[in-house]
């Protein structure tokens, strides 16, 4: 019988080999192939690639955990990160595909006949992509260190090397076909444990049905039982929200508009052969994403119930081994506040500060001791939310190869997203900055070389950020959506649907949206975190949802400024009419 580590080496090694073989077979030979895969990608394949591009380490590893710990309130992520595709498919993707060209700043720059607008778009695209990619590289390092006992730095370097090979060699072409493979790996790795657990807990192979059923021989449904457990332990009911409706609406909408405005997702729709293919491929993309996104809430319920059943009021000595394994990797901590040797899991933070810092010594029951001050509430347990996906197979006692599969899936999710983001950075530099601004006389061959070099440099910077993550990365990633919602999304939307929208209106709208959203976030998250509560928020909207307000300001300012400035030039208005019409076959 093979151990977990052997299985992990085997599965991760095999998947990496597959990515490299694909990379070598799909090298790019022109900028068209490097930027947009020569527009030869079939809609179904583009759907898979988009799904892998979109589903990051956070979707794969953290999302089910976030939902598991926040219950109904976690729905904002489920709806926000899928609902954005409807906006993308109906309002943006077909027209941007009709427009053609290579990048999002291309569209902004030409539609608003302004290098300033192009430059603002380039800076936004690079900023959003880098903050996002640092998180992916970190995810790669974490998976390596948990499952293969390789330290984070070496893990990140291995990940960089793999991305380097297929992004620099193949550009969009290489990335697209590796992403197709990565989608298959990650969805298999997510679904297998979910189906196993659904069979064990709910007696059905379909998790989406299982978590809304009554298990055989039980009186209560899973959800009713979990609600009961939550009430008993002092948490709010799992299926009920915190009740701040305005805030939930604002966050959901900001995530939706932000998703539709993220450059690495939009750029995928430039790679299909036609406008029709762009529409269809958006449908496929969301279908492939929905498989994971509708399973995650089921996993969240199974894992939450399992966790409470396994640890609550059990003595430390009788708790299964996985608890101690994850305690040894700092993701679980227990402080025996009442000295009875039993784990009490209640609402509230058990520790102050909330993240545990471990000492060398062991306590009376054999638990790791902490330097944190225990808080005054009854909760004795700290659980990192990432455990819900990473440790779920162990908690449920699944076979070794399933546990190993989770590692390969997490890596596929992180690498595919990282590659997509790095391509945005590289094209922004070689195409938008060099070719379209600084060196218009650049030949195609030189531009391709510049694209490869900037991809290579971007991989190295991303790796550096992954090894030395600035403390604010996690915060910033969440707000990338707010910024995209307040800037890119309205600018592109008005560019297509309001023919008379002009340069002055669009730029002032983007600037107002960006500055308002960024200042609100910086004020509450970085300058005065102690004021970051619902009483101080404007209209009760948290910094996560403020992008929605920024978006409204963007529209208003753009409309007002447009009304007393000159119409766009005739050829721009003609271009808008042009992208609205179907292609001539």
């Amino acid at each position, binding site marked *: 019988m093979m151990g977990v580590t052997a299985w992990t080496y085997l599965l991760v090694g095999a998947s990496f080999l597959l990515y490299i073989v694909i990379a070598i077979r799909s090298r790019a030979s022109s900028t068209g192939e490097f930027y947009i895969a020569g527009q030869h990608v079939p809609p179904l394949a583009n759907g898979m690639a988009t799904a892998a591009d979109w589903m990051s380490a956070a979707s794969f590893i953290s999302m089910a955990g976030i939902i598991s710990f926040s219950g109904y309130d976690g729905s904002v992520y489920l709806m926000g990160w899928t*609902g954005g595709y409807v906006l993308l498919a109906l309002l943006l993707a077909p027209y941007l595909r009709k427009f053609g060209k290579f990048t999002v700043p291309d569209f902004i720059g030409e539609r608003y006949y302004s290098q300033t607008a192009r430059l603002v778009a380039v800076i936004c695209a690079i900023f959003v992509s880098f903050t996002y990619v640092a998180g992916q590289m970190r995810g790669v390092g974490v998976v390596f260190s948990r499952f293969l006992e390789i330290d984070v730095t070496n893990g990140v370097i291995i990940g960089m090397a793999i991305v380097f090979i297929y992004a620099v060699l193949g550009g969009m072409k290489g990335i697209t076909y590796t992403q197709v493979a990565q989608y298959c790996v990650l969805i298999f790795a997510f679904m297998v444990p979910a189906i196993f657990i659904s069979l064990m807990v709910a007696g059905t192979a379909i998790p989406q049905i299982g978590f809304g059923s*009554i298990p055989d021989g039980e009186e209560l449904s899973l959800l009713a039982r979990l609600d009961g457990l939550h009430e008993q332990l002092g948490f709010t009911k799992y299926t009920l929200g915190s009740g701040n409706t305005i805030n939930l609406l604002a966050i959901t909408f900001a995530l939706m508009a932000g998703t539709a405005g993220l450059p690495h997702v939009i750029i995928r729709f430039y790679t299909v052969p036609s406008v029709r293919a762009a529409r269809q491929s958006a449908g496929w993309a969301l279908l492939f994403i929905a498989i994971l996104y509708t399973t995650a809430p089921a996993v969240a319920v199974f894992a939450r119930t399992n966790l409470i059943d396994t640890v609550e009021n059990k003595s430390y000595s009788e708790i299964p081994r996985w608890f101690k394994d994850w305690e040894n990797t700092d993701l679980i901590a227990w402080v025996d506040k009442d000295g009875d040797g039993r784990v009490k899991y209640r609402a509230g933070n058990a520790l102050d500060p909330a993240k545990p810092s471990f000492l060398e010594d062991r306590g009376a029951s054999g638990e790791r001791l902490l330097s944190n001050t225990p808080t005054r509430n009854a909760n004795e347990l700290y659980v990192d939310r990432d455990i819900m996906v990473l440790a779920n197979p162990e908690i449920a006692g699944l076979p070794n190869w399933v546990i190993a599969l989770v590692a390969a899936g997490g890596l596929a999710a992180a690498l595919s997203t990282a590659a997509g983001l790095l391509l945005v950075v590289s094209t922004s530099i070689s195409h938008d900055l060099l070719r379209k601004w600084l060196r218009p006389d650049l030949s195609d061959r030189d531009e391709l070389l510049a694209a490869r070099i900037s991809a290579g440099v971007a991989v190295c910077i991303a790796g550096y950020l992954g090894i030395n993550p600035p403390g604010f990365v996690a915060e910033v990633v969440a707000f990338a959506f707010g910024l995209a919602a307040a800037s890119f999304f309205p600018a592109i939307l008005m560019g297509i649907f309001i023919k008379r929208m002009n340069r002055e209106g669009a730029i002032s709208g983007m600037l107002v949206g960006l500055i308002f959203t960024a200042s609100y976030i910086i004020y509450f998250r970085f300058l005065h975190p102690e004021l970051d509560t619902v009483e101080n928020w404007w209209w009760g909207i948290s910094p996560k949802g403020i992008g929605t307000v920024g978006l409204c300001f963007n529209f208003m300012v753009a409309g007002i400024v447009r009304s007393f400035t000159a119409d766009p030039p005739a050829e721009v208005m003609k271009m808008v009419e042009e992208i609205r019409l179907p292609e*001539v076959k």
Partner: protein
Amino acid sequence: MSQDSDVARQYWRKNLKIISLLLTIWAVVSLGFGIALAPWLNQFQLPGTEFPLGFWFAQQGSIFTFVILIFVYAWRMNRLDDEFSAGQDGQ
């Protein structure tokens, strides 16, 4: 030429009609059923299951609806594109 732009204007108007209908459904299902009306809907259960209805819309139903909306849009628009090019050929 004027007939040409007439066909184009009609095409665009139809497109806007389809978009507004589908986006209305999009908003009602997610922001409406999934959030604003969820507490009230939770008194009912999704028929045949034990899901509180509002909770189900927020975590499952809205996502299924989104997928269907995009495919419906692709199908309707691709048909409209065909009509449009047929209309142009007939000039």
